[in-house]
């Protein structure tokens, strides 16, 4: 079997496996629905996700340990993941193949020539990782300054070193070293006097461009809901995702760029490929030319996926091990070997120090700058309601990789990709929208936390969610609190009975309770003409027949016999029929002033009981801007957002 055939089988297998994981990520009882399928496996294999979270949390969470296998294999073999495993890469490669089918070999080879812009991905990698590195820096500074002697030693040491460097007591590169040490000294001194770590923090932003979360997000939120919209085999009903079109356009755009340049995304943008490019420096085996007997025919480059210049000085850091050069070379000159290419090799990308510094500075500066908006502090957005079990906001942003798995799994479709609600850092992180889905957050459901690959949404148990058994003292997890908008609520503002919110409130005792009030209806004052049996003829404007027959209207006798309320069973234009059931005192006398009252049950929210599940908001019949709405006040993940004593 040709090596490229083996590669294609491998790519096809992993692509199908990935798509299968997307299909089975459904909540339900059928065999093809979640039954312990390792649906996150591709993210677990992703060393960029692993490294990103290690930088932000200093831990390698649970199954992300798989990434170690990828790293070790890449250290030995090179970028096998890009060429043999990555399902996004497979899609790019296939579309690139479609795009170049009719091209003549020389223009295909020209399109596959190495370009300087391929370095962009390395800078992007630096930028994205630096955005997370702030957390590490903050931890470092905190650790150093929690000892009294360490910072002093450090400050003195750096100052001494700087002086030594400046007075040329140290070796080469002294200028640069001096600048670095000077800067370090400066920052150390600064940190010594000010608590810098309060403002240095990072957030996990690799998921914006990391191909694996990007692919999960795109397929699950934009592609599957479209493909499934007619057959409805995967979801019970149409799924909605806020802003899915942006995710979809980016995805399709990335794919269509292949028609111009094969593997455009992989070559120029992919930060995961860039990371593996660095790792492949150490690879035991690399693609190489084994003899100088080469007439530069360029056949090796007609199908070169990495645009890594195999005909000349090969750039192994950009080689995705597609093995096409190997396969195409008419003279069998290419090999995968443990010795360098005879025409030379470049194993590390030639990046400019300035570029790296700029990427690093931008990355480190961005999260603290973004937070100057106050989004994680006093100016937090109450509409950024996080799924149950979510960590406090700053910690959440250190872990969430925007993969959209929680949004995919949520049985009620209420977990939505954030737009700008939680700031630019929070783009595509999960927020709850109780209008979009089919219900609120289901009481006994913990699916989002179980599927989260990084524990940004912690894997909680129903007991923890509901505050039962071992968690009784902690109480239930609150997502927020429901607020009745008395200007929109039917019983409060429109004198119409309703209380759907009270009915559907799932906690016991209910967090939504009602206060009963009897209110005179508009133009409801009139007098009694005469009574006969349970029939009261009235003096006053003609009534709409049947208007007061709903069982919610009462005759209020203001004076004389029968004073008080009597339930109305029905009405004609000039008479009311009172309910014959129940105990009945005397009826009003002719001439007695009466009013027609409506019995209203007006909803109230008990914040001690409300868990913010949003079922009331979802069911509220005021279908536009709901008359009862949940915002994140009182959410249990952050004490500072509570208004309870």
């Amino acid at each position, binding site marked *: 079997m040709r090596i490229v055939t083996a590669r294609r089988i491998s790519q096809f297998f992993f692509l199908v496996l990935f798509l299968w994981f997307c299909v089975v990520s459904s909540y339900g009882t059928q065999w093809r629905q979640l039954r312990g399928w390792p649906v996150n496996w591709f993210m677990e294999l992703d060393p960029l996700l692993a490294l990103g979270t290690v930088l932000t949390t200093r831990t390698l969470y649970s199954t992300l340990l798989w990434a170690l296998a990828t790293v070790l294999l890449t250290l030995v073999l090179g970028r096998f993941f890009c060429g043999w495993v990555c399902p996004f890469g497979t899609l790019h490669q296939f579309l690139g193949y479609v795009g170049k089918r009719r091209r003549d070999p020389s223009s295909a080879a020209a399109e596959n020539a190495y370009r300087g812009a391929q370095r962009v991905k390395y800078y992007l990698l630096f930028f994205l990782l630096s955005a997370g590195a702030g957390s590490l820096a903050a931890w470092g500074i905190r650790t150093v300054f929690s000892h009294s002697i360490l910072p002093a030693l450090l400050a003195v040491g750096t100052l001494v070193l700087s002086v030594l460097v400046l007075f040329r007591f140290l070796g080469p590169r002294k200028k640069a070293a001096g600048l670095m040490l000077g800067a370090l000294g400066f920052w150390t001194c600064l940190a010594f006097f000010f608590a810098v770590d309060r403002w240095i923090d990072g957030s996990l932003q690799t998921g914006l461009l990391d191909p694996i979360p990007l692919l999960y997000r795109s397929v699950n939120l934009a592609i599957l809901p479209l493909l499934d919209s007619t057959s409805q085999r995967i979801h019970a009903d149409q799924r909605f995702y806020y802003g899915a079109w942006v995710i979809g356009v980016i995805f399709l755009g990335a794919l269509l760029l292949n028609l111009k340049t094969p593997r455009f995304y992989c070559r120029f943008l992919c930060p995961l490929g860039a990371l593996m490019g660095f790792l492949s420096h150490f690879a035991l085996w690399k693609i190489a030319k084994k003899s100088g007997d080469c007439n530069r025919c360029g056949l090796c480059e007609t199908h070169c996926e990495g645009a890594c210049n195999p005909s000349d000085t090969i750039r192994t850091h950009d080689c995705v091990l597609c093995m096409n050069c190997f396969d195409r070379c008419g003279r069998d000159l290419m090999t995968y070997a443990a010795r360098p290419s005879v025409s030379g090799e470049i194993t590390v990308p030639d990046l400019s120090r300035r570029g790296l510094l700029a990427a690093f500075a931008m990355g480190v500066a961005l999260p603290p700058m973004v937070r100057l908006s106050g989004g994680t502090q006093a100016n937090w957005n109450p509409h950024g309601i996080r799924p149950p079990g979510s960590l406090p906001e700053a910690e959440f942003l250190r872990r969430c990789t925007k993969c959209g798995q929680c949004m995919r799994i949520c049985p009620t479709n209420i977990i939505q990709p954030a737009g700008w609600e939680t700031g630019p850092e929070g783009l595509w992180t999960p927020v709850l929208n109780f209008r979009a889905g*089919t*219900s609120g957050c289901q009481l006994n459901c913990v699916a989002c936390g179980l599927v989260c690959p990084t524990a940004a949404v912690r894997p909680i148990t129903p007991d923890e969610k509901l505050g039962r058994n071992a968690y009784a003292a902690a109480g239930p997890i609150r997502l927020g609190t429901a607020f009745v908008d008395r200007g929109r609520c039917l019983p409060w503002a429109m004198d119409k009975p309703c209380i*759907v919110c009270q009915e559907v409130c799932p906690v016991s005792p*209910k967090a939504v309770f009602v206060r009963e009030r009897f209110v005179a209806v508009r133009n409801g004052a009139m007098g009694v003409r005469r009574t006969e049996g349970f029939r009261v003829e009235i003096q006053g404007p003609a009534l709409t027949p049947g208007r007061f027959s*709903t069982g919610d209207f009462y005759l209020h006798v203001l004076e004389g016999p029968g004073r008080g309320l009597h339930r109305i069973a029905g009405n004609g234009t000039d008479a009311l029929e009172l309910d014959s*059931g*129940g105990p009945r005192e005397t009826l009003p006398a002719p001439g007695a002033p009466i009013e027609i009252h409506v019995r209203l049950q007006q909803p109230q929210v008990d914040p001690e009981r409300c868990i913010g599940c949003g079922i009331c908001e979802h069911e509220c019949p005021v279908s536009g801007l709901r008359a009862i709405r949940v915002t994140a006040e009182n959410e249990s993940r952050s004490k500072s957002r509570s208004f309870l004593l």
Partner: protein
Amino acid sequence: MESADLPGEDRREFLRRLAGTGAVVLGTGLLGYGLYDPEGPGPTQGNPPEESLTLPNYTMPEAGRRISIVYGEDRIRALQTAVTALGGIEAFIKKGDRVLIKVNAAFAMPPVLGATTHPDLVRETARLCLQAGASYVAVTDNPINDPSSCFALTGIGEAVRSAGAQLILPREKLFSSATLPGGSLIRNWPLLYEPLRGVNKLIGITPVKDHHRSGASMVLKNWYGFLGGRRNVFHQNIHELIKELALLIRPTLVVLDGTTTMMTNGPTGGSLSDLKRTHTLIAGTDPVAVDAFGATLLGRSPRDLPFLLKAEAAGAGTVDFESLQPLRTNLSG
């Protein structure tokens, strides 16, 4: 000029072009004329046409209007006894019948909390129907919470499977616009119609529950689960709506489960302390009478429930359940 040398060639070329251009011009003109709409959209555009999907009457006149009341703790035995007292399942289900069972699966809660139809009753009813020769038994509801979660957590989904019946999830495409003739609320309203189409028997099974807005959630209130759309607007006039449902849905048999009664915090409950052991199960062919008896388990008089009085006045049944001479059986005795 060359063209002057070949006038015939030139003319042919011109005629060819003329034919081509003429065909395109004519086609474009005709297309434009065909699409021409001088009126524009009228004011009714967008409203669905007045449709009157009406439901068949699933009652069996020969079974009469009867109810039976069984006192006991064991739901399955109580159901068997109650059905036997009404003449046995064969009185309702004939060989080859197609049966739909409407349960209350409104909330994604375990059966022990009593907010939903107990799975034992679903399993046993489906089993009885199949045993009597039914060719098809399906179970459905349009719950308030997420449907698949509801059927999974309430145990109803599993009960349906184990009994060999079909579970129908309320997918959007199963709803059709329906109108109750003479009704004022159920007009062109989405109804879970597809499961009702093609069956000739309808059985309702539901627990007795407190309900703040209507007073009680029992057999008649359970038909709410056939409605789709933003049905919650009907809460403004809930008694009238339940009356209309009572007229729209004419079941073969209804079972009201008062083995436990949700006395407080209904209709969701959520705590065992909301339940009271009332060890009563009612079956019957008059849903109004069954509900009227059920109200007594909640400590309420049927006269306190306007929807029952309205349904009675509309001719859907009688509130005076004693007039049907209910057959009472005590299993514990």
